[in-house]
C-alpha cells in the first residue's frame, strides 16, 4: 500500500507542478501588473503544493530521493499529470478558463482528500483548500468579465472552453490504483464528483452567457505517462539548469 500512496502523491505533485510552471510563464507577460502578481501568486501556491506532495513521496520512497529529484530528474514518460495541466498557456482567456475548470475541480476534490485516512495527504489537502477558495473566486470573476465583456473577450473565452472541454473528462477517470485507494479511504473517488462539477460549470457559464460544448470528445493518457508534445518542451526548459549542473547549490 505504501508504494501505491507514493505513486498517488507523485501524481498529485505532477498535476500541481506542471500547472504551477505553466502559470509562472506569465511572469512579466500578463496584461497588466495586478494580473501579473495574481498569476504568480497562484503559481506559487501550486508549486508549494507540488513540494508537499513530492516531499511526502520522497519520504515514502525512503531511497534517498528528495523533492527536487521528483521534479527535475524524471522524464516525460514518468510524469503522470492529467493532460489539461500541460497545455500551453495560450492567451489570457485560455489560462483563466483552464483555471476555472481546475479550481472548480479542486474545490470538490480537496475537501474529500482532507478526509483521507492518510494523515499527510489530508493535511496537505486541508491547507490547499483555503488557497483554492481564493483561486476560484478569481477565475469565476474573470469568466464573467470575458463572457459579459466585449465581442472579442467573449469569443476568446468561448474558443478556450471549446479547446479545453475534451481535456476535462480525464479529471474524473479512475484507474485501478486510484479506485483501490478510493476504496480504502485514502484517495478520492473523483468520478463521483463529475455531476456536481458539471452543474457548477454550467451555472457559471450560463451566468457568463457562454456556451457549454455539446460534443463529448475526450483526450486521455496522462496518468499512464502518455503526454502531448507540450510536456516534453515544458520539462526541457524547467529541468535544464538542474540537469546541466546536478547537485549545484546557490
Amino acid at each position, binding site marked *: 500500500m505504501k508504494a501505491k500512496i507514493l505513486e498517488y502523491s507523485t501524481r498529485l505533485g505532477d498535476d500541481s507542478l506542471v500547472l*504551477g510552471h505553466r502559470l509562472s510563464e506569465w511572469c512579466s507577460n500578463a496584461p497588466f501588473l*495586478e*494580473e501579473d*502578481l*495574481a498569476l504568480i*501568486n*497562484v*503559481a*506559487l*501556491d*501550486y*508549486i*508549494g*503544493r507540488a*513540494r*508537499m506532495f513530492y516531499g511526502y513521496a520522497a519520504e515514502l520512497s525512503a531511497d534517498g530521493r528528495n523533492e527536487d529529484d521528483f521534479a527535475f530528474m524524471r522524464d516525460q514518460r514518468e510524469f503522470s499529470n492529467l493532460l489539461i495541466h500541460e497545455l500551453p498557456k495560450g492567451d489570457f482567456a485560455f489560462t483563466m478558463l483552464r483555471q476555472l475548470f481546475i479550481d472548480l475541480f479542486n474545490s470538490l476534490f480537496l475537501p474529500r482528500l482532507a478526509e483521507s485516512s492518510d*494523515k*499527510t495527504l*489530508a*493535511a*496537505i489537502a*486541508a*491547507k*490547499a483548500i*483555503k*488557497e483554492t*477558495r*481564493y483561486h476560484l*473566486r*478569481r477565475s469565476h470573476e474573470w469568466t464573467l468579465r470575458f463572457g459579459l465583456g466585449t465581442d472579442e473577450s467573449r469569443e476568446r473565452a468561448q474558443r478556450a472552453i471549446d479547446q479545453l472541454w475534451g481535456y476535462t473528462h480525464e479529471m474524473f477517470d479512475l484507474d485501478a490504483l486510484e479506485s483501490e485507494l478510493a476504496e480504502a479511504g485514502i484517495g478520492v473517488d473523483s468520478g463521483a464528483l463529475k455531476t456536481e462539477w458539471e452543474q457548477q460549470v454550467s451555472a457559471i457559464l450560463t451566468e457568463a452567457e457562454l456556451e457549454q460544448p455539446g460534443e463529448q470528445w475526450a483526450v486521455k493518457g496522462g496518468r499512464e505517462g502518455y503526454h502531448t508534445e507540450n510536456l516534453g518542451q515544458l520539462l526541457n526548459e524547467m529541468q535544464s539548469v538542474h540537469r546541466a549542473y546536478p547537485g549545484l547549490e546557490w
Partner: protein
Amino acid sequence: MVIEFPLPTAAYQARLAQRQASALPEIWALLEQVCDPEIPVLSLWDLGVLNDIEQTDERLLVTITPTYSGCPAMQTMRDDIEAVLRQSGIAAFEVRESLSPAWSSDWISPEGRSKLTAYGIAAPRACTACRGQPLDAEIQCPRCGSTETRMTSEFGSTACKALFQCQACLEPFDYFKPI
C-alpha cells in the same frame, strides 16, 4: 481616527496556552526576535508561524507552521531561527514543519494586528466570518481609519496580501487576507 481591532481569537488563545504550557520561557523570548522577512515588524510568534518549543532528551524541537503553500519566505524563516539558536550556543536542535492544523490568519497575535496596522497593512478580519463574503467588505484604511475603501486586486505583492485603495484619503494599501 479609530481603528478597531478584533478581540483575540480562540485560535490565538489556544496558541498562547500551548506556549505557556511548554515551560521554556527563555527560548520563547529568544525566538521572539526572529521576524518575518517580508513584514519585518511581525515576529514569527506574532504571525502564528512559531507554534511549539519542546526539549527532548537529545535536542530542542521547534515547531513551525508554514503560511501559504508556496510562500518563498519559509526557508528564510527557518534559516533565521537556526541562526539565532546557534548564536545562543544551542547546537542540538531540530526545526520541524507542521502541516496540520493548517495555518490561519486567525493565529496572528493581537499585538501583531496592531503592528500590522501601524506598518500600513490592514489586519485581516476573522476568518470564520470571511467565508463566502466578498473580500472587500468594510476594510478599514490603516492610515485614516475610513471604511470607504475598495479592492484594486485580490492578489498583492505577496500571496498573503490584497491591494486596496482608500477612497477618503486616497492612500493605496495592502490588506492581509483572511485565510
